[in-house]
C-alpha cells in the first residue's frame, strides 16, 4: 500500500517537511511574558499540606490532672480533615524529639485563624516533657496534617460510633467541632471511656457541642455514677445509643482496642466499618543490648548508639539527627530508609510495600535493631 491523502502524493511529503519550520515559528512567536512561579493549585496545596514548619506555642490549658491542651500559632493557614494528626517536635537536650498528636481543634479554626491545638496526656518521653516543660512563646516544629482517621462519605455509614479512651478523645473533639461548624457532614455518637468523672477531659465543651448530629455517652470504669454509663464500651451500648448501621471509629490505648475488637465483632461490621487510629510503636520488652548504628544522610555518615529495646528512629532522634518522622506506627512510609546491613525486627504487622521488602527498605519508626545496623536515611525536614 502507498498512502496518499492529497490529490498529489508529493504534497503529503511537503507537509511533512513543513512540520519543523512550523513548530519553530510557533515557539518563536509566542509572547515573552515571564513564566509563572507558581500555579493556583500550588496555593491551595500550601494550605492543605504546608510542609514542616515552625509554630509558636501560644496557650496551655490544664484539662484534667494529667492532660493539657496546647495551642500553636502556625505560619499560615491550614486545612485538614477532622481526625487527622500532626507531628509536634522540639529539640530536647541533644535529641530532636517528636510525636504525632491528633488535632483537637476544628478545621476552620486552622483555616481562618492559622491556629491548631492538641491534647497531650502526661505519658512517655516527649509528651511528659511537653506536659512539664513547654511554655508559651516556645517554638516547635509542626508537620503536615496526616493520617486516614477521618470520615469518608463514600466509604462510611452516615452514623459513626466513636469509641475513645484517654487522650484518644481528641480526634473526636475535632470531629464534633467540625460537625458543628459545618466542615464535616455526618452524625457522631461518641462513647467516651474514662476511669472516673474527673478523668473526662473536654466534658464541658463536648456537652455544649451536642446537637441532632452529635451525641456523647460517658462510660466510667472505676466509678459508679447514675449520670453515666459504667463499665466499658460494649456492643450492647453501641447498639443502644447509635444503632446497628454504624461505622465504628476507635482511638485509645491498646487495652481498649483489645476489648472493643471482641465487642464490635458481635455487631458483625467487618473490616470496612471498623477503623482504628494506630498508636505509636513503643519500646519492646527485651534485655538492654547496645548496638552501633551507622547512618548515611546524603554524603554524611553518622555513627550513633542504638538499644535493642528502642526503634531505630528513636536511636537517631536521641543522637539529634534530623531525620524524617511522622506516624511512628510503620504505616505512613515517611521514614522509608534503605538498609545497608544488619538484622532487625519489625514491630507488629509489616506495613511496607512488597517491593520495599524485596529491595531492603525499612521504616525505622517501627523497626528494632537485632545487630549493628547500617542505614541510608532521607534527610529530615526539620527547620534548623
Amino acid at each position: 500500500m502507498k498512502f496518499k491523502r492529497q490529490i498529489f502524493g508529493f504534497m503529503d511529503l511537503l507537509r511533512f517537511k513543513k512540520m519543523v519550520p512550523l513548530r519553530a515559528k510557533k515557539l518563536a512567536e509566542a509572547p515573552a511574558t515571564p513564566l509563572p512561579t507558581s500555579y493556583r493549585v500550588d496555593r491551595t496545596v500550601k494550605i492543605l499540606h504546608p510542609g514542616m514548619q515552625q509554630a509558636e506555642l501560644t496557650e496551655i490549658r490544664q484539662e484534667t490532672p494529667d492532660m493539657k491542651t496546647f495551642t500553636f500559632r502556625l505560619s499560615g493557614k491550614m486545612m485538614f480533615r477532622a481526625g487527622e494528626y500532626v507531628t509536634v517536635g522540639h529539640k530536647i537536650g541533644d535529641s530532636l524529639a517528636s510525636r504525632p498528636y491528633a488535632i483537637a481543634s476544628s478545621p476552620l479554626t486552622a483555616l481562618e485563624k492559622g491556629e491548631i491545638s492538641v491534647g497531650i496526656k502526661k505519658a512517655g518521653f516527649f509528651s511528659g516533657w511537653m506536659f512539664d516543660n513547654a511554655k508559651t512563646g516556645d517554638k516547635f516544629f509542626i508537620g503536615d496534617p496526616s493520617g486516614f482517621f477521618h470520615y469518608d462519605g463514600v466509604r462510611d455509614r452516615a452514623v459513626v460510633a466513636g469509641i475513645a479512651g484517654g487522650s484518644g478523645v481528641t480526634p473526636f473533639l475535632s470531629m464534633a467541632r467540625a460537625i458543628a461548624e459545618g466542615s464535616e457532614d455526618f452524625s457522631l455518637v461518641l462513647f467516651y471511656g474514662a476511669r472516673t468523672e474527673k478523668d473526662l477531659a473536654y466534658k464541658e465543651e463536648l456537652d455544649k457541642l451536642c446537637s441532632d448530629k452529635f451525641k456523647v455517652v460517658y462510660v466510667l470504669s472505676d466509678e459508679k455514677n447514675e449520670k453515666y454509663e459504667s463499665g466499658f464500651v460494649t456492643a450492647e451500648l453501641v447498639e443502644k445509643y447509635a444503632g446497628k448501621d454504624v461505622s465504628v471509629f476507635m482511638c485509645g490505648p491498646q487495652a481498649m482496642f483489645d476489648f472493643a475488637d471482641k465487642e464490635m465483632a458481635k455487631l458483625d461490621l467487618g473490616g470496612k466499618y471498623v477503623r482504628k487510629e494506630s498508636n505509636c510503636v513503643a519500646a519492646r520488652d527485651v534485655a538492654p543490648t547496645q548496638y552501633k548504628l551507622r547512618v548515611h544522610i546524603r554524603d554524611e555518615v553518622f555513627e550513633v548508639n542504638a538499644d535493642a529495646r528502642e526503634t531505630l528512629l528513636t536511636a537517631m532522634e536521641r543522637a539529634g539527627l534530623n531525620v524524617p518522622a511522622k506516624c511512628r506506627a510503620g504505616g505512613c512510609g515517611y521514614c522509608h530508609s534503605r538498609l545497608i546491613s544488619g538484622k532487625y525486627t519489625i514491630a507488629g504487622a509489616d506495613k511496607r510495600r512488597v517491593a520495599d521488602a524485596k529491595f531492603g527498605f525499612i521504616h525505622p519508626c517501627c523497626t528494632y535493631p537485632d545487630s549493628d545496623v547500617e542505614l541510608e536515611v532521607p534527610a529530615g525536614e526539620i527547620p534548623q
Partner: protein
Amino acid sequence: MDKYDAVVIGAGNGGMVAAIRLLQGGAKVLLVEKHNLPGGFATSFRRGRFEFEASLHELNDFGPKENGGDVRALFDELGVTDKIEWTPIPDAYRLICKSEGLDALMPFGKQAYINAMEKQVPGSRKATEAFFELAEQTRAAQAYTSSKNGVVDSSYMVKNHGNYVRTGSYSVNEVLDSIKMPDKAKRILNAYWCYLGAHCDDLSFSHYASMVVRYITRGAMMPKGRSHEISLALCERIRELGGEIWFNTEAEKILTGADGGVEGVTLKGGRQIKTRHVIANCSPHVVYGRMMDKVPERAVRAANARKFAGRGFCMFLGLNKSADELGIENHNYFLYDTMDSVRQYELMKSIDTNRVQATVCLNRAYPQCSPAGTAMMYFTTLYMSDAWGEVTARDYAKTKEKVANIMIDRFESDTGSRIRESIEEIAVATPLTYARYCGHPEGGIYGYESQYWDGLNPRLQMMEHDHITRGLRFAGGYSMRLSGYSSAYFSGDITGRQTVGDIKKEG
C-alpha cells in the same frame, strides 16, 4: 564545593534512566529528588490491607521475552530487567460507550484484534489491516530514526519509509479517514486516545499508531510489586554503578555562568553543587519559571507557546469482595460519553461534565495483588483545563467526594457490577496531589499536549533546536518523547546519552 559531571533533578522515570545512562557513559552523577521516594508517578502506597499502584495501567512496549519490545531492550541494556517480576495483562481493553451502543472487548495480538474488529464492525477488515500496515511502517521508521539519533537523510526516508513520511504530518482522524476506516471501527480503534491526552483531530497519527501497534502486537506487562518495583530496581542499578541518590533534597536553582550555560545547582537549604550538566526531569515551565535567574528569552517564548496536557485525577478503591463476586470482568476499561474525541475533550474541561474514566482492576492481571477475597481498582481521568485551580481548600474534600461518586456511579451503570457497598479503603489523588508530589504545573500528568504542531515527529526532529541552554537537557513527559511510562523511559535514555556526548565533547 562538591563537584559532579552531571546532576539529575528529579528521580522520575526519565530522571532515573538518564542517571543510569550517564553512569554507563562513565560520568560521576548525583540524582536529587525532593520527595522521600523515587519514581515520581511510578510508585505505590499502602492503605489498610491494600498496596495501590499509583499510576501505571499497563507497561507498553515491554512484551514477553520471546517478543520483546523496545522497553525490554532498553531495560536489558540498563541491567534492570531481571530485578523485576513481570505479569502479563490479559486483554487490550474493554471499551464501553453506552450512549453510542458500544461495548467491545478487544484482545492483544494483531490477527485476534483484526478479527474482533471485524466481528464488531463487519467489513472493517481491510481498513484495520491497512492501519496495522501503516503502524508497523511507522514503528520501523521510528526505530531507524532512533538508531540515527534523529539525524536522518530525507531522501533515504522517502525511499525506504515513504508511508511514514506521507502520514507523518496528519492527525489520527485524517489518516483513518483517508484509509476509509468505517466510523464504528474508528471509534473502537481510537479508544486509547486518553492515554495520550490529545483528541484525535490534534493527535499525530504516527504517535498514536506507534503506541497502538506496540500494545497490540506485544501485549502489555505489569510489575508484580507495582511500578514501585521498577523504580526501586532502577535506583538499585544507579547505586550499583556508583551513582548517588539524595532523597528529600529539592534543587531550587540552576546556576549559570557568563556564557549562560550551567555551572551548578543550589539545593534547598543553600548547599551548592558544582556541575556543568543538568538533566531536568521536570517541565521547562518550572525550570525557566523559577529555577534560573537569567532566562533566555527564546526559552520563555517557547514555553509560553506550549499547552499543558491533562491534569490527573485518580480514585483508588480497596474492595472487600473478589472481582468475581463483584462482577468485575476485565482488567482495564475505557468508559466514555462519546467516541467523538473532540467533543469528549471539551466535556473534560470541567469538574461537573467530566465523566470519562480509564479503569483498572489489577486482580484481573495479577490475582495475588490483594488478599484473597478482595479486589483493588483504580479509576483515572484527566481534566483538560485548570478546573481544579478553582477549588478552594475548604471545598477540596467535598469536591473529591463528588468526583468519586461520579466515577463509582458511572462504573456501576456502564458495567453492571456493584462495588459501592464493598469499599473498604478509598484514596483520591487530584491535580493538587500531583502538583504536590511531582511539582508539575496545574497538576498535569501528561506534560505538554501533543497539539497538531507540537507532536512527536517535530519534537524528535528538533531536539537540538530545543536545547537552548548549554548543559541543560530535559527528560520526562515534557520532553521530546511526550508522556507515558515508556516514553519517559526513552526520554531518559536519549537525554542521558546526549549528555554523555556533551561531557565527552568538553573533554
